[in-house]
């Protein structure tokens, strides 16, 4: 019995089962999406129906802003952390990874404990600024929550990319006459571009699909995963929920495919 034949024999039926396991639920969702009262118009409604469109735009904007801010903050922090050895550095890096351990719903609570009506920020701002800052349930609160779990993901990827940078690239640029700004503009940031795209796309996809945080905070704002939940559970509009799921899935999948193309295969982190 040759090696090839051996492996093939064991695995063909298994692969068939797995494929079915992955394909069936998805096909089912796609079919359900087109089989409600509206038929295939349910898919068009994602964009044509003002309420749905507003939610889609809301979600896209929130995910984009989260991604942009995460990238900016993570790049600056990553460059600093990777270049300086100082007491407490290891602790700081370990701390950055803590938020990854909490489910979105816990992150939501943290934001409530921080910026809610009984929150720390309100308690501090009242004596200092004369008013009680409460923004947990606003777009700002949601953004803060999203940043809380996005930044660590992005920072770890970017720090790894910075570590892999050939230090002689920077030295070569300096030898050629480049000052600090020119070195960053011409050499370091371009070299980090694949890491930016990969980690940015992951942050974007994660933010698009974040349910737990939205569920605890988004009482006034609508984001896609919340809308899907409401349509399915409260409105019992299963077809519309399915159509919205397919739309969300497509956007997130495209972002992840982009990330994968730039990072070489193991990227896998939606919410």
């Amino acid at each position: 019995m040759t090696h090839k034949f051996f492996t093939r024999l064991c695995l063909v039926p298994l692969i068939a089962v797995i494929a079915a396991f992955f394909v069936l639920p998805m096909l089912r969702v796609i079919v359900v999406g087109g089989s409600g009262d509206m038929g295939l118009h349910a898919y068009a409604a994602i964009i044509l129906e003002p309420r749905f469109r507003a939610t889609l735009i809301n979600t896209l904007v929130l995910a984009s802003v989260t991604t942009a801010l995460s990238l900016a903050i993570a790049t600056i922090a990553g460059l600093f952390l990777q270049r300086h050895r100082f007491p407490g550095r290891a602790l700081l890096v370990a701390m950055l990874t803590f938020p990854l351990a909490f489910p979105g719903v816990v992150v939501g609570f943290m934001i409530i404990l921080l910026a809610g009506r009984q929150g720390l920020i309100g308690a501090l701002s009242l004596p200092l600024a004369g008013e009680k800052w409460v923004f947990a349930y606003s777009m700002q609160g949601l953004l803060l929550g999203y940043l809380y779990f996005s930044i660590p993901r992005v920072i770890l990827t970017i720090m790894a990319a910075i570590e892999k940078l050939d230090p002689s690239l920077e030295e070569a640029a300096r030898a050629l006459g480049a000052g600090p700004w020119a070195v960053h503009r011409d050499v370091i940031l371009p070299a980090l571009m694949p890491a930016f795209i990969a980690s940015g796309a992951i942050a974007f996809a994660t933010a698009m699909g974040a349910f737990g945080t939205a569920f605890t905070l988004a009482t006034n704002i609508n984001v896609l995963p919340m809308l899907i939940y409401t349509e399915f559970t409260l409105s019992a509009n299963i077809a519309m929920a399915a159509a919205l799921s397919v739309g969300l899935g497509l956007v997130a999948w495209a972002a992840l495919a982009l990330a994968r193309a730039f990072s070489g295969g193991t990227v896998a982190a939606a919410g």
Partner: protein
Amino acid sequence: MNTTQGVTVRVENCAKTFADGTRALDPVTLDVARGETLVFLGPSGCGKTTMLRIIAGLEKPDSGGRVLFNAQDVTRIPIERRNVGMVFQSYALFPNMNVAQNIAYSLALRGAGKAERDSRVAELVALTGIEGLENRNIDQLSGGQRQRVALARAVAMRPSVLLLDEPLTALDAALRERLRGELDRLLRTLGITTIYVTHDQSEAMTLGDRIVVMRKGAIAQVGSPRDIYFKPASRFVAEFIGAANIIDAVSDNGVLVLPGGRLAVDKTGHGQVAAMIRPESIGIISPEAAFLVGRVASVSFTGDRQRLVVDGASDKPLIVDASNTLAVKIGDTVGLTVAPSAIQFLQGA
């Protein structure tokens, strides 16, 4: 394009101790003449790269050390204003720029216009023999082409000093040998003062006007390739540069007394000596005609010569490089002859 803008370089009392207390370099003072090619040669960890980085401005010498270009103290001038051309072992080409942009980067930083940049790039690709590759991306280049782009980029802004850190080490043996010749011609054409770091003694021999052999953060010997090869200052230099037989024996009024006979030497007096003989300086003759005989322990044919190991002649087996046409086999008794001038006495360890 004989750019004779080379400067003299003086390294004065430069030592280097790293933050963790490691001493990378003992105090070194050294002068490099205008247009000279000086090679730092030594095993890894000998301090040669630290030396180069101090001259480049990438490391600061310990206090008391100074680096002078044309007698001007540049110790506190950062690398980006020292006007040094640098070639790295990894080449460090910018992957986000094409070949022409890499070469012209230093000119762009200095605000040169497009016409000036284009003409200088054209000049340099011709000089380094990479015509037609101007618009290629870096990842489309072979190792040898990358090496040439790195060199063209380093000399684009007509640097005062050209610094090369193992620039051929990343290439395979055949290509390395070919590029060594090309590099030699190019350095002579440019006439820039050049400091070259390598662990490869053939590279050092071919390229260096002078060679600085380093060991454990200190200079073991400075001299021309011939000095270093024929008159090594120590056992370390003798063994690091090429193959060497080092014979510990008694020298008695012009004669070295050995287990297999004796050798005439240029040395009077009586005493224990360490004598170095290069393998190619030993001639094989008929044992009847010889004052020194031994038995062939192994013969290894390498094409251009045969390397023999001869037992019984000296205190340890002698390595002999013989002509590839010599008929000799394991077990033969052979006579050995060495010109007295080819025997060098070593001091110290």
